[in-house]
């Protein structure tokens, strides 16, 4: 199990999570579940981006190194750019998810259900 969770497999995990959550988006009937799957979907992309920062063999870490001997050892540091970009992506995702949850709140209070199919009927989209 520990070997599976090794950083080298993380990218595959990220892609697996991407497609699992995508499958969830296609199949879930409940709006709350859809939102949870969207968040997982975002997380998988963020995870993929984080794994991009790996330069050498070590785990991705910020390039803050106290030991002067290790300063020019490229295997000990990570590329900081993907980490910075990921942070931006997370913040944007947070803002959008916040608005989606607010909208869901309004809808569920109005109709008393979070079921996609029932909402389609209640909103007059299908007969």
């Amino acid at each position, binding site marked *: 199990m520990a070997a599976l969770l090794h950083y080298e497999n993380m990218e595959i995990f990220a892609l697996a999570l991407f497609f699992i959550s995508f499958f969830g988006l296609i199949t879930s009937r409940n709006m709350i579940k*859809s939102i949870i799957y969207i968040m997982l979907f975002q997380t998988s992309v963020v995870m993929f*981006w984080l794994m*991009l920062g790996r330069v050498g063999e070590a785990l991705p870490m910020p390039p803050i190194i106290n030991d002067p001997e290790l300063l020019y050892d490229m295997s000990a540091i990570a590329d900081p750019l*993907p980490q910075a970009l990921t942070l931006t992506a997370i913040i944007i995702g947070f803002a959008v998810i916040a*608005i989606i949850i607010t*909208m869901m709140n309004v809808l569920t209070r109005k109709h008393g259900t979070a079921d996609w199919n029932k909402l389609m009927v209640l909103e007059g989209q299908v007969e």
Partner: protein
Amino acid sequence: MLTFFVVVPVLIAVLLFALATNRVVRMIAIVFQSALFAASVYLVSITRDADFYTFVGSYENLLGITLRASSLSAVLVLLTTFIFLAVTVYSFVYEEQDARMFWFLMFVLEAAFIGLFLSGDLFNIFVLIEVSTLVTVILAMYDRKNRNIFHGKVFLMTNLVSVQFFLLGLGYVYRLTGAMDITRVTESLAVLDPANLRLPYVLIMTGVAFKNTLIPLFSWTPKVRIYPQAPTVVAAVMSGLQAKTSIYLFITFQDVFEPIAAHEIFLAIGIVTGVFGAYMAICQTNIKNLLAYSTVSQTGMIIVGFSLQTQYAHIGGLYHIISHAMFKTALFLCAGIIIRSYGTADLHKIRGVLRRMPVVGTATITAVLGIVGAPFFIGSVSKYFIFEGNHPGMMALSILMSLGTMVMFVKFSKIFFGQSDLQGISPVPEVTKVLPVVIIGGLCFLGGVLGTQLIYFLFRYVVVIHAWTYMYKSLIFIAVVGVGCLIYEKGIKGRIIFERMGAATTSFKMICASMGVFLAVMLVLVF
């Protein structure tokens, strides 16, 4: 210098957020907006020969974030500032509640669009796509009385899903090249093994095609559904400009992935989108829905222009971006005036616009003549170039698309004649609303008469319109008018089945599934 183009709209936004209820402040905002417009004319004139760069933070190499004004992006900035100037004047007498927040968001949206056009950094493009989508949704649901949260929510959620594909694709690009700067990425991808580019290309193109409302993806349903509830100026900006940001992304990424760009696939998709969008537009009864589906159809036509791989078609595609922004903005603003005057958006109930509002009616007719491609109007020039010099099969398809557009505007044109007693909130439109409509309507005519000169000014292409071919196409146009009227009167008018089909919609799950199918099919086709 390019930083100012992004910062000034934000400053206007803050100014209006503080004091938008004051008329003097709105005048100042219009003055600032005019200055921005003048500056973008200057930008177009200096970027015609070489790209113009600004390095944000003074890092003049790979590490820095660049703002890049190419010839195309400068023209799109010009278009953005012009249309926002028009909508600012249009909304000088403001009708909705809570004007401060509305204007704040509108100008933030302008800054996001300009930033998207000028950004030379792929990740910034992702950020600005997200910002513009979010602001658009909030603005589209601004009218509290008739907003529909369900459609807004589906729109936002599907866009969020599509942009994750885009972001994953960008991740692959970063892994392959180690850069996010468009120029560097293009240079690096050109020398890499094309086999490695397929997955990022397909992932990014899924996101971009979704934003473009292309046909195998069901993205047009939530998009069109939020139009009727949106305030008029928001609808105009969504159709006139937001659709253009997606097309700009399409052009950019086809250029970045030039070694493996799948032009034939997008040519086929563009043709299907053009025909299907027109068909769906014919089935609508709401005036705003009809115009929104027409945007779907015209987007297909622009995609065709950029996928045909000939010089003339490329120029035609570029010019069709401009012409579509012009006539669609004019049509939406006119529709706003008409809806306010009649108190309804039903195409079957509005009658006698020409008699009640002669000036607005004339401007609308100018825009309609532009969109159907009447001789001497703006649409005819761009359509002429898109389909110039291609083989006869393309010619037949172009006639099919024109016929679709013609039939929907035969339906639309019924509103000009007849008699109706319906009264809305303001039967006589204000001068500030009529003025921008008349100016844009006039440009629809001038852009047709001075088409080649305008193309030279904007894009530095020297083009010639052959008089005989133009005459020949004008004759075809007259034939299309006749056939279009006949089809509408005999085949479509009064048939309830078409309106049932026009109301068809799809669920969130279906839209997500269509994205997955598109991704899979594209992967198979590209490999």
